[in-house]
């Protein structure tokens, strides 16, 4: 979803400081997730926002920044537009901002009330169903994740963050596919067609026999998704008419284009080409790419106004890493997230003192648990004897019990007790002394 979050900014900042004229007084900055798979962005809404801005805003009036960090915007959502000190995040909010304040809207203004309702409903559908499908294709499927998506994030992020951020995104993606009922496929997915054998949980019938699982497959949700979109478009060039694209067209483009990424096992792509509705959507993608999309896939660097992001300091990166890692500390993670301000609450709301107390308590308890574990490890195992008595290891004792018996015998004592001779000076006396002692022992 992530679309609703810029409204605070719109209602406060923008209305308080209205623009002097229709022309932007300063460059607009669009912050996005960076490029991957030969496309300008790895995220569908960022891709849509890039395409939309490229269409409605002249090239010299905006710049594109691959910041790859959601915390640049106060709403923690990318894409985020930074303009005149205001932050607008989420694709639909950016569209609304551009339409109401900056430029004459390209096409959305001509829509009827019912069409606007459709546009919102279908945008909502894209960001729920479409993102679930996309999550499944790029994040949940293990082969695509290891060979494609994770390496892509590794090239976008700085070093220690590659350990935390992609994993967080993946677990969010797995949670998203729960609505499709496909989340359990994450573990054992059949790479060929995206269906699962479901080896781990074998259901049984009432009489105890194994029930053959109905193979759940990605194909059915994907077909339904394509059909829903294709029916709205009908025979028109764009979703709402033949002349001009609307914001929904760019959003659909963002999702559908990423769904066509060549994964190791392109089951969605296959489903799209074989399906009538899907192939009509492929034609739609071609029309968009030839006509209104301003960037070209083979010349991403040249056709978009890229600006290098401000480099993050080592301290900032490390603190981000530590913050992400702390989330996973058992017992402390939830309190930490809440303390950091995560959750559903007003941005300026006071921190609950009970929450602070709880967090501190949890941290102390966690430290105490770790400390006692260390102490416990250092103790010798319970039941071990605290004293040990051992026979002297010198002489024939080193040969065990037999050695001990023979050691008592007179003849063997002298050579065994002979020390390894530290210095030639002492040798004689020590040797002599031993000899005398032996003689005394034996003679009586």
């Amino acid at each position, binding site marked *: *979803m*992530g*679309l*609703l*979050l*810029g*409204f*605070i900014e719109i209602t406060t900042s923008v209305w308080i400081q209205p623009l002097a004229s229709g022309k932007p007084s300063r460059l607009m900055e669009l912050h996005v997730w960076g490029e991957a798979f030969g496309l300008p962005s790895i995220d569908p809404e960022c891709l849509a926002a890039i395409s939309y801005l490229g269409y409605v805003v002249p090239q010299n009036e905006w710049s594109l920044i691959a910041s790859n960090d*959601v915390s640049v915007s106060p*709403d*923690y*959502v990318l894409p985020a537009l930074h303009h005149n000190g205001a932050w607008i995040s989420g694709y639909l909010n950016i569209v609304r901002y551009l339409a109401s304040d900056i430029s004459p809207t390209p096409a959305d203004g001509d829509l009827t*009330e*019912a069409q*606007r*309702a*459709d546009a*919102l*409903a*279908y945008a*909502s*559908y894209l*960001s*729920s*169903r479409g*993102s679930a499908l996309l999550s499944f294709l790029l994040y949940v499927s293990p082969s695509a994740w290891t060979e494609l998506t994770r390496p892509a994030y590794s090239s976008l992020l700085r070093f220690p963050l590659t350990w935390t951020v992609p994993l967080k995104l993946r677990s*969010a993606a797995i*949670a*998203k596919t729960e609505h499709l009922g496909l989340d359990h496929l994450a573990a054992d997915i059949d790479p060929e067609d995206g269906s699962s054998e479901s080896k781990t949980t074998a259901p049984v019938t009432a009489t105890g026999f194994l029930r053959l699982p109905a193979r759940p497959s990605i194909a059915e949700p994907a077909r*339904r998704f394509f*059909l*829903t*979109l294709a*029916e*709205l478009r009908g025979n028109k060039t764009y979703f709402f008419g033949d002349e001009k694209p609307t914001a929904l067209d760019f959003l659909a483009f963002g999702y559908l284009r990423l769904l066509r990424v060549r994964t190791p096992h392109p089951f969605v792509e296959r489903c799209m080409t074989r399906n009538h509705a899907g192939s009509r959507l492929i034609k739609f993608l071609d029309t968009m790419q030839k006509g209104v999309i301003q960037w070209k896939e083979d010349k991403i660097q040249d056709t978009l106004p890229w600006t290098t992001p401000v480099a993050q300091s080592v301290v900032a990166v490390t603190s981000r890493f530590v913050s992400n890692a702390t989330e996973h500390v058992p017992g402390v993670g939830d309190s930490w*997230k809440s303390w950091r*301000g*995560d*959750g*559903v*609450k*007003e*941005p300026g709301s006071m921190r609950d003192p009970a929450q602070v107390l709880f967090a501190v308590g949890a941290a102390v308890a966690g430290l105490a648990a770790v400390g006692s574990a260390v102490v416990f490890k250092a103790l010798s195992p319970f039941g071990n004897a605290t004293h040990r008595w051992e026979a002297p290891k010198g002489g024939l004792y080193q040969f065990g019990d037999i050695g001990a018996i023979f050691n008592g015998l007179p003849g063997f004592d002298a050579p065994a007790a002979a020390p390894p001779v530290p210095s030639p000076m002492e040798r004689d006396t020590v040797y002599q002394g031993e000899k005398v002692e032996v003689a005394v022992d034996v003679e009586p």
Partner: protein
Amino acid sequence: MSQSSAAAAASGPATTNSSLHTPAPAAPHRTAPRSDWFTIPEPLRLVFKRFPLVTYAPNELPVRSPSNRELPVLYVFASDQDVLKGLPSYNPSCLKWQTFLKLAGVQFRIASSNNHASPTGALPFLIPSSSPSDAASQTPIPSNRLERFALEQGSEKLADAAGSKLDAYQALLDHRIRNAWLYTLYLSPGNASLLSQLYVEPCSTSTVVRTTILHKLRRAAEAEILQSIGAPRVPPTALCIGAEQAFEALSAGLGSDKWFFGNSRPGLFDAAVFAYTHLLLDDSLDWIDTRLRDSLLKFPALAEHRERLLSRCWGQARE
């Protein structure tokens, strides 16, 4: 004795024959040597012969157990008084299916229940009319198969689902409106008393248990919202504005028609919208934080739609 047996053991195979031979002559004297262990001694037998001392009459079934299994029973969140009158449930997903079954013309009763009773872990579920002898008919039907059940069992012909449009508009309900609903009921501090009246107080009388349940409910609702939005922090105002836009879109989608998608009869989507609009506009629930209700009241078409559906399904119950 012990010496001789030790000697016998030591002497080996030669003595085997004789040791086998010894018990053999004793066998004819006893009729059944095993019965020695399994017959009860006479005094004990006399004691146990006096049992059972008293046989009680079988317990009566609890008052709320189903008295007749002629009708299917839908298990929903509802107070016991509402169940007797068959009034709408206070949980949106329960109310959606309750309304839909009524629209489909299925004869059914409702029963008050909670998530722990459900085979899927979530209400509603339905137990079809059954006879005690037929085990298959007693299998509960979870909510994702209720639509098929209603279409098979119902007497009314329902409007065909409008295919693709329904999916798209359902996304508005399932995300924007549901998120705002979850915030308004579970997280908004103003509605805390309503939340505990509906979901916490019926569970337990113990303060400790109530506090725990309340905390868990809130964390679960917050996690749902964050997951649906996909951001680590969400300002509540954004949720309410998002829901208002969704209401606006629904109102525009309804237009001047009586039912959604221009159908002549209400269908599943009408029931789904009604489940939220009715609960927000219902006067018997006291909303303190009325932001979501106020947004809904800006669109009279939806309020009229709710009135229409309410009088169609619960027309006689209200009088």
